[in-house]
């Protein structure tokens, strides 16, 4: 029997599961779709309720995970097929050509300067550009470059090759082909995380129509010192710094109308944190949070809200809201309801706490693995009460947001929990 585990998804849940397993002496194959591990947490600026710097606490884990003698981190790869059963899965992993030799690249970045192609950066939520050869972010692990074959003009049109010329280590190989790996593992942990819902279709919020309406993830990148604006909050319309911010909760979530009747469980706290950070950046920042129910229900959360009110002057208004715009200055006008009376107020910027939804790819993966998903696309646990993370397929376990809304500590706990379950399953399959 195979004493190794595959972890699919390199976010914090996957990293935690991998580390827990690797530390137990089990070989872990961590498959990550994007060029770097780190997942959503890497995009965050701070984390609630301690306002820890997210990347500061994550980066050591990423490095540990990558350099652990028992881990095999396969980035830029996807699981395309699975056979077998618990104790003896055969997993087909498509490792996409990154056109850069991982063993040669030092991530020095000389090639970046020479690449003429600009593409909106996925990591920066499109707020800034990356090159066709890139690392998704500064602290990426592994810190090697990747060529995006859709946009590289050498690959698409056969001319350029600037990066190859710039690379002293000759790490660039335009001839690189996708590779199909076949990996045998005893069990599998799925931790594919979430996506942020695009609120363009809910036109009442004006996202995409009014320049100064942002999503929470965009704001998060903007306020990050390493982000596209170097931590400066600025308006799309005039690059001015806003002072009056409105945060609107439950945009697309808790809304059966748009198909996400569930609560995303993290946005109340997330927006509170964003409002607090605004005030930390500038004393004159005033934030208002429009909410349905302030769901601050884990350790230290309610105290955090109280602190936001008391020390950061964050105003909380119990109302859903819609957005109009003052055409003269592009100031968003938030329309809300206090005591059954319509009110409206002009703000400099509106930040939408959009629904967090399971990734589309997760459903495909579920099909490959034979997992059940609910109608929202969350993967289902077979035992809803005592066995969260155990699935209908023996030997396959879940962790993190893919299994339902969870914040970082819950994802970490689920990562560890899935690791324990994977070991138990293999022990059982091995007749132990």
């Amino acid at each position, binding site marked *: 029997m195979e004493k190794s585990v595959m972890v699919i998804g390199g976010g914090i849940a996957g990293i935690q599961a991998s580390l827990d397993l690797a*530390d137990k002496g089990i070989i872990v194959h961590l498959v990550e779709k994007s060029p770097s591990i780190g997942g959503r947490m890497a995009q965050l600026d701070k984390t609630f309720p301690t306002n820890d710097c997210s990347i500061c*606490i994550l980066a050591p884990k990423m490095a540990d995970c990558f350099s652990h003698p028992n881990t095999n981190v396969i980035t830029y790869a996807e699981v395309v097929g699975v056979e077998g059963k618990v104790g003896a899965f055969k997993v087909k992993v498509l490792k996409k050509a990154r056109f850069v030799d991982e063993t040669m690249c030092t991530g020095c970045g000389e090639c970046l300067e020479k690449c003429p192609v600009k593409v909106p950066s996925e990591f920066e939520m499109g707020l800034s550009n990356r090159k066709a050869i890139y690392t998704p972010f500064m602290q990426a692990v592994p810190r090697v470059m990747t060529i995006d074959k859709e946009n590289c003009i050498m690959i698409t049109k056969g001319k350029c090759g600037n990066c190859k010329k710039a690379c002293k280590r000759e790490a660039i190989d335009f001839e690189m082909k996708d590779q199909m790996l076949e990996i045998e593992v005893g069990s599998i942990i799925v931790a594919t995380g979430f996506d942020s819902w695009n609120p363009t279709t809910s036109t009442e919020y004006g996202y995409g129509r009014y320049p100064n309406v942002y999503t929470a993830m965009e704001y998060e990148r903007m306020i990050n010192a390493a982000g596209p604006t170097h931590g400066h909050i600025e308006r799309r319309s005039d690059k001015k710094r806003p002072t009056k911010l409105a945060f609107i909760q439950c945009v697309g979530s808790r809304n*059966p109308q748009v198909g996400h009747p569930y609560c995303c469980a993290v946005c109340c706290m997330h927006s509170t944190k964003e409002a607090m950070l605004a005030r930390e950046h500038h004393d004159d920042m005033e934030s208002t949070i429009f909410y349905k129910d302030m769901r601050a229900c884990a350790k230290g959360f309610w105290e955090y809200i109280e602190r936001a009110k008391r020390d950061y002057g964050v105003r909380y208004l119990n109302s859903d809201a819609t957005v109009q715009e003052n055409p003269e200055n592009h100031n968003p006008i938030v329309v809300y309801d206090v005591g*059954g009376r319509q009110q409206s107020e002009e703000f400099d910027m509106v930040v939408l706490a959009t629904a967090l939804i399971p990734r589309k790819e997760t459903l495909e993966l579920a099909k490959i693995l034979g997992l059940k998903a609910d109608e929202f696309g969350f993967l289902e646990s077979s035992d809803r009460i005592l066995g969260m993370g155990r699935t209908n397929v023996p030997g396959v376990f879940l962790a993190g947001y893919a299994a339902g809304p*969870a914040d970082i500590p819950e994802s970490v*706990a689920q*990562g560890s929990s899935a690791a324990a379950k994977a070991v138990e399953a293999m022990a059982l399959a091995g007749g132990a």
Partner: protein
Amino acid sequence: MTMAETKKTDPNEKPRIGVYVCHCGSNIGGFVDVPSVAEYAKTLPDVVYATDNLYTCAEDGLTSIREGIRKHNLNRVVVASCTPRTHAPLFQTTCESAGLNKYLFTFVNIREHCSWVHMKEKEKATLKARDLIKMGVARARLLMPQEEEKVDVEPTGLVIGGGVSGMTAALSLADMGFPVHLVEKEGELGGFVRNLNNLYVTEKSATETIKPLIEKVKASKNVKLHLNSQVKSVEGFIGNYDVVMASKGAEDIKTKVGTIVVATGALEFVPEGLYGYNQYPNIVTLTEFEILCKKKSLPSLKNVAFIQCVGSRGQKVSYCSRICCNVAIKNAINIVDNYENMLGLAEKNGTIIDTVPVEKKVPDEILERRRRRRGRERGEEGEAEEVKLGPSEKIEVTVFNRDVMAYGVEHELTYNKAREHRVKFVRYTPENPPKVFMEGNQLMVSYFHETLKLDRSMPVDMVVLSTPMVPQLDTREMSQMLKVPQGQDGWFLEAHVKLRPVDFATDGIYVCGTCKGPADITEAATQAAAAASRAAIPMAKGYVQAEALTSVVDDIKCSGCGTCIQVCPYGAMRKNDKGLAETIVAACKGCGCCGATCPEMAITMTNYTDAQLLAEAKATLEEV
């Protein structure tokens, strides 16, 4: 990964330092005159070899380090290139493969901290690079080989608490192949859940739900169950805890365990003096209500009020107790849908409470509206036909809340279901809470309707108070015994709220379930499995190995004042039998707080000694 036999380095041997300066392509070479820096390095004291590489981290660079160690008999290696935070392990491993203790390696960062940040000042950048290498060499001269201490781990676990968390953790450890002692102070397994009627999300009875778990725990060969028992004392450190367990009417049991999982659970807050509790009849807490339901001894009800946040969120305790909204919602639905069953009629029919499937997403069709209308056919002449009474005409449930904490998928859907089933939710503010009083023989609730700005009142037959979970009374004793911290609310405090949710700062002890804060059964069980996973790591390894970045106490200087014990965040300092301080190497993380604190300056930090730091800093201050 296999390591070559490390040759013994004599600490007193004169340093023979090799310096490797990296061009990192043009990343460093473009802005720093690398060859001249390498030349300069040769002039530094004790440097016997210096060279420059295009990429020191490339295989040829690493080879040149290995060769240098052999050829020049180097006993210290300095690499000047990028940041130690990503590349130190690589070079350390290289040194080790050439037989050099990895603690005799020093890293100098001349890329992130020099060439890249002084791209327009090559001369000054070169001067700085020289200085940085000089500092590195000064430090290297004082480096000492270190042995990483290995401590064997007893591969047996201890789980304190026999509730759902404790049982899950114990079973998980057992299933992973480790013997476990499970200690429960009551005579029965199950913990708090035994009080409950059914568990939300499913309508299955609580006892039925945990029955298989209890049976598995009892059946497991690896679980040694200690009922009616308590942990009396715990001494030792990770891998080596000496535990004494006391059982009622039996002799104390002494045993050795490697890791400990704390799962001692929580209590329900008793709302003495609030909302007429213990003053008027039919005012109960959520758990009391559950017990009534479980025993099928509810009184006859027509109007029930739930009051949320009784004592929590800034009243008696500052926190939100996370689960009470969802428990109240569950019970509200039970009352509306299954009231007759709850009255005990079900027992006569021999059925348990029916499973009511949670109605999920409404199909997004415009014609859906018709559903609403069909129930209401009216006569030709506009005369109202017999109006079909909704369930609410039989029994009315009102939930007074401040915010409904129906987080996630299933809670929110259940909340939606409750409203669809005509459970009324009325929001109140802490300034204007509902009032419970008697009017004659009638129990009444009055409230202020926030939106309509109206004072309302209604007769009720029962008031259910949702009170928060509070820590067990013996949490403090437990925390002192285990030397683990409590947070300000009295809950056990995990090592890091974000990334180490089930670890204590002290290695070897783990925490899960409601003893570290309110959680529902699913979350508690998940944490328990997580804690088991964490606890299994040192046991699976069989040893713990501490990086040799620890504090060392000079017991001649130590006066035993104990300040270091007080400041250490990991409980890694203790008093030895001489009454002097001693580092528990396995627990020490090397932050240096004790060293900087020790009033007698009796503590030094390996690999970061005062002498090393001062030498490094002063090297740049010397007049050239």
